[in-house]
């Protein structure tokens, strides 16, 4: 399978088991969403897919593009085309936003990932950056600022989306990308995600609000509860959860 396949995944952090035999098959060309209450392990799932060093995989496999990626460091996973939009992006002093993204692109180019789609040089990169920054409502000065330093909650989230657009990933996991965004920004961000929709692009939106799903229409919906996927379906599942809450999954 071309997408992201997760088999019987058990993950613990600091001795506590968080994912308890999770199975998930995320096809390329589709937009997926995972819903679930706080503490169900959604963020952990995103971190583990990307290779966070604190999360220990006890058992199971994560297969991307037919390759088990569990042994790969985060940068290698990125070079395969994965991207994680963080719920709480870190503030990094001394590196400007544009400098950081350009360095990332150079690193990806070096690993020969979709080289022809990346800008040839810094000047071309700047052009693309300006255009896309403007779409996301950033002004000229923003890209010269240190990465996420002093950004508002909403700016950080939009900056994650801007990074996503520039790094041209093949499969993205966006963790609570809509939290901290005002309603206009939710729409802008949703449009950015929709604009990437293609047979060559897949996404997993992690959310416990339904709000963004009014603008990005997921093809598949999963409900996560206590470290497992307990139900899957189409968009109707979003409405069902909206009505009943997560309580009904208690005994599933």
């Amino acid at each position, binding site marked *: 399978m071309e997408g992201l396949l997760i088999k019987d995944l058990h993950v613990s952090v600091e001795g506590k088991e968080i994912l308890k035999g999770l199975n998930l098959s995320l096809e390329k060309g589709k937009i997926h969403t995972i819903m679930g209450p706080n503490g169900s392990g959604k963020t952990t799932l995103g971190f583990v897919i990307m*290779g966070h060093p604190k999360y220990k995989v006890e058992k199971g496999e994560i297969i991307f593009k037919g390759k088990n990626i569990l042994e790969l460091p985060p940068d290698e996973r990125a070079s395969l085309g994965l991207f994680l939009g963080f719920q709480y992006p870190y503030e990094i002093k001394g590196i400007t936003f544009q400098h950081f993204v350009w360095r990332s692109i150079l690193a990806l180019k070096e690993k020969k990932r979709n080289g022809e789609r990346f800008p040839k040089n810094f000047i071309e990169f700047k052009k693309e950056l300006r255009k896309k920054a403007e779409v996301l409502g950033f002004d000229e000065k923003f890209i010269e600022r240190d990465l996420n330093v002093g950004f508002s909650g909403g700016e950080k989230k939009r900056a994650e989306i801007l990074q996503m657009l520039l790094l041209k990933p093949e499969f993205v996991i966006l963790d609570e990308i809509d939290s901290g965004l005002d309603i206009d920004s939710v729409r802008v961000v949703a449009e950015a995600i929709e604009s990437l929709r293609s047979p060559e692009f897949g996404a997993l939106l992690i959310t416990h609000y339904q709000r963004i799903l009014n603008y990005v229409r997921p093809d598949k919906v999963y409900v996560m509860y206590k470290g497992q996927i307990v139900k899957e379906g189409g968009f109707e599942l979003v409405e069902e959860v909206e009505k009943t809450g997560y309580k009904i999954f208690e005994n599933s």
Partner: protein
Amino acid sequence: MDNSKDILTIDLKKYDFRDEVEYVYTAPKGLTKKIVEEISHLKEEPEWMREFRLKALDIFLKKPMPKWGADLSGVNFDEISYYVKPTDRKGTSWDDVPDYIKKTFEKLGIPEAERKFLAGVGAQYDSEVVYHNIKKDLEKKGVIFLDTDTALKKYPELFKEYFGKVVPPTDNKFAALNSAVWSGGSFIYVPPGVHVDFPLQAYFRINAANIGQFERTLIIADEGSFVHYIEGCTAPTYSSYSLHSAVVEIIAKRGARVRYTTIQNWAHNIYNLVTKRAVAYQDAVVEWVDGNMGSKVTMKYPCVIMKEKGARAEIISVAYAGKGQHQDTGAKVIHLAPYTSSRVISKSISKDGGRASYRGLVKIIKGAKGVRSNVNCDALILDEKSRSDTYPYMEINEEEVDIGHEASVGRISEEEIFYLTSRGIPESEALALVVLGFIEPLTKELPMEYAVELNRLIQLEMEGSIG
């Protein structure tokens, strides 16, 4: 037994030792009056310098080892042979240069001839032409730029007027040691109103004495002049000596501006104990830009004494302490006159169990009204094994002053690195990015080629491939 590893380096090309063969002997280890006299004699120095050296030796022998700073118990003065062996003109051989230094040269892309020069095993003849052109240009302006030994011969009066005045031998044990056995270093005099518009670099000097063990540098910037002097380079400096103890003295007269940039990366066995001090007269500006990497222990606190009103001091330093290293560095600003001002920016990085200490002094005497002083020191600790400490000393005896002091200790978290690597940047590069961002206040003050080299070196350190 080959004694060549511990001999004192002097510029042997400049003296004809064939006539001095009778003085060649195998000296006992340890520093004695006889050895000091011998050095002075070989250099054909005037009587006053001989006396100066001998007096300094007395002071050195009387002063106890400083106990307030880094651990110096590994320095054994009796194990160092101060003997000058004229027949061994190279002092060290390429085979003695440790592999890790050779590898670093390679990774930095330093040409073969230069590598040998930097390792102290040969002179850098390639730059001779460049040096001569610079020399001609300077001579036209009346600038003197010589090695210190030659300067003493050619300009005895000028030399005597200033030498040992800013850093007297009584200052500290290592200044006394240097005063007793000094050799090599740079001597610069810039006449009134003359601006030297390119940096003078010790690097271009063709004698190997530059990177000797006890070099002595003296810079006199006359009224309204400007000069930028650069010492060292980012490539690792190999020396078979375990002790490097230099003295640098700067005199900035009224309205003059002197910038002194040091980038040093000593081999990991070296005790680097250096005294650097400047005196700034009315409206003069002295800037120390100081980058310290390598060595086993470094103790270095560039100092500016502001003697007349309007004088200004700017001290920017970066220290990197890796495995087994202790960088005890900082700055001293001494305000002896009203309306003088100082700014200190200190950045330290410790990794792999290294220890970086900031030790600084701000002194303002009574009556020095309107003084402004700002000290900012930031430490970055890269892992749990490493350490950083801050020892800021203040002696403020005047109330009408404006003083600021800020200190911070930062760590790079696993999460931050994860965030950066998740975009495709390898871990070592992500670390380097954060570190380079941290030391940017220093790198932006460096000439381009030095900044580029320093950045590359930090990257190599982050790869853990050095040392």
